[in-house]
């Protein structure tokens, strides 16, 4: 694999915020520079946006459910009801410093197109997704012979919104294919804690419950 995993400063985990926010949110927030402009695609109830705004970041959101939009608006957030598959095309180039897609890529109809749009709209993208190569998934298929269900992905195969599962390995391969530069990569375990940084990719692909990637556009002509 051509891309190296890189070290990530994880000072956020030691901050007093820790208890109030989700582990993956703190990790994402650590990746965003202060004073930047961020679009959170699939922002849910706006918890990540609130965390970002508390750190002086100008945040905007897109959320599919009206209830989610309502919760966000009540928190004073600027959130638009919309869909990653259909609405990202309407945002102009370079509108944001970062575009975040948290646990949503696997639920889009055209993940590759969505990924390309993220990096058109934003100079950088932060993408997190459940790793289908996680050992619990593999074990359920191998031994149980049924579609995997986990604590974080409890839906049955017939009612899951997740239609495009991938492994960390698959995702890295896609980034290579569409000429996306991976600036940072982190794998989190089932409890949202980062795995050892010096672990090999196969270890991440086996023991990472989710992957979090900071991406940017590769230089042209490479």
């Amino acid at each position: 694999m051509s891309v190296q995993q890189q070290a990530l400063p994880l000072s956020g985990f030691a901050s007093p915020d820790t208890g109030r926010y989700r582990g993956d949110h703190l990790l994402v927030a650590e990746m965003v520079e202060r004073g930047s402009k961020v679009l959170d695609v699939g922002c849910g109830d706006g918890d990540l946006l609130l965390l970002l705004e508390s750190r002086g970041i100008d945040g905007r959101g897109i959320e599919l459910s009206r209830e989610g939009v309502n919760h966000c608006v009540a928190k004073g957030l600027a959130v638009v009801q919309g869909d990653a598959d259909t609405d990202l095309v309407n945002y102009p180039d370079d509108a944001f410093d970062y575009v975040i897609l948290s646990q949503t890529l696997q639920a889009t109809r055209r993940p590759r197109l969505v990924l390309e749009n993220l990096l058109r709209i934003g100079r950088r993208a932060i993408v997190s997704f459940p790793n289908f190569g996680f050992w619990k998934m593999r074990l359920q298929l191998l031994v149980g012979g049924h579609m995997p269900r986990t604590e974080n992905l409890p839906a049955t195969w017939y009612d899951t919104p997740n239609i495009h599962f991938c492994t960390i390995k698959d995702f890295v391969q896609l980034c290579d294919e569409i000429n996306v530069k991976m600036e940072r990569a982190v794998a989190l375990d089932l409890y949202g804690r980062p795995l050892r940084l010096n672990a090999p990719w196969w270890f991440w692909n086996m023991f990472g419950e989710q992957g979090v990637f900071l991406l940017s556009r590769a230089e042209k002509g490479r």
Partner: protein
Amino acid sequence: MVNVQSIPSPAIHSEERAHEADHPSSHVALFGAEQPLKLDCGIDLSPFQIAYQTYGQLNAERSNAILIFHALTGDQHVANIHPVTGKLGWWETMVGPGRPLDTDRYFIICSNVIGGCMGSTGPASTNPATGKVWGLDFPIITIPDMVRAQAMLIDRLGIDTLFCAVGGSMGGMQALQWTAAYPTRVFSALPVACSTRHSAQNIAFHELGRQAVMADPDWRGGRYFEQGTDPHRGLGVARMAAHITYLSDAALHRKFGRRMQDRDLPTFSFDADFQVESYLRYQGSSFVERFDANSYLYLTRAMDYFDIAADHDGVLAEAFRGIQTRLCVVSFTSDWLFPTSESRAIVHALNASGARVSFAEIETDRGHDAFLLDVPEFFDISRAFLESAGAARGLTRNGG
């Protein structure tokens, strides 16, 4: 001969309406020769007056004022008994103590638009130069003209910045125009079921309505006041056609289906056999009691001309560049007059200009009129938006 039944004559006489046009049962702000209203058509309208209602108290900081904009056939009587019809205000569900537009917290203003017929200067008003009703001598007005007049009223009331600009349909157009024209004077805006430009289909419906009015022999080239006639049939037909566009197929079906009106069998006539016919005729006849036909022509025209982007080389985002106003745009799924796609276009432009905008599409089968009806999801988002904007504005619970 087959039995025919047309729209009945209005129960309320036109004199009563005419009186309300010059001497409204509202507050009136008079603007004399030294303060003309500069209209887009190039004419300075002077003197002119604005009729308005207020609810709640302006706080000491003058920071809690909400300006509500009424729709095409609405007026300033938002939350009080209407002086002509005796009915409740048109937005009682939204405005009042504890309601989303909480009169215990906010100072709420609604003015009759310029060109209207409920006390702001319009074609039904008396032209001071001639002593006669303006009629078609009244200059063509636009949505920006209405907004310019409102800004003069807000100046007169000593308010520098509105806490919020709120309106649906034509009212939403005014909220957007306020935001584009006076971005530093609008802290937040809630444009509902509207658009930044009137669509071809909507212009077509308006033209249908205008032609219905003008085809009525009682219209008399717009001089019906002087000639003692009332084009209530033409205006009634215009209202009936327009009213269909405010509803939806699903809502009409749910409300009326093919049910008969006070009969079990068809009468084999052009009588109002179906409930939906009877309902539309009622809508037509009750409308003409309170609305002036010429005013209907002028206001529909103002909506037709509305196109914010046109003033910015066709680039809508330019109209909103750099604005600090917080916006919440709301649309309704079954609204086919101002469909969600129109609201999305507003949101895309606002996003492109970097504005702080939220957007929600409310699921309902009640069509365009949903913004006037009891739709809890709409109240929820409005309340959520105003409360968070109020917190950002430093407004406290007791209106301070």
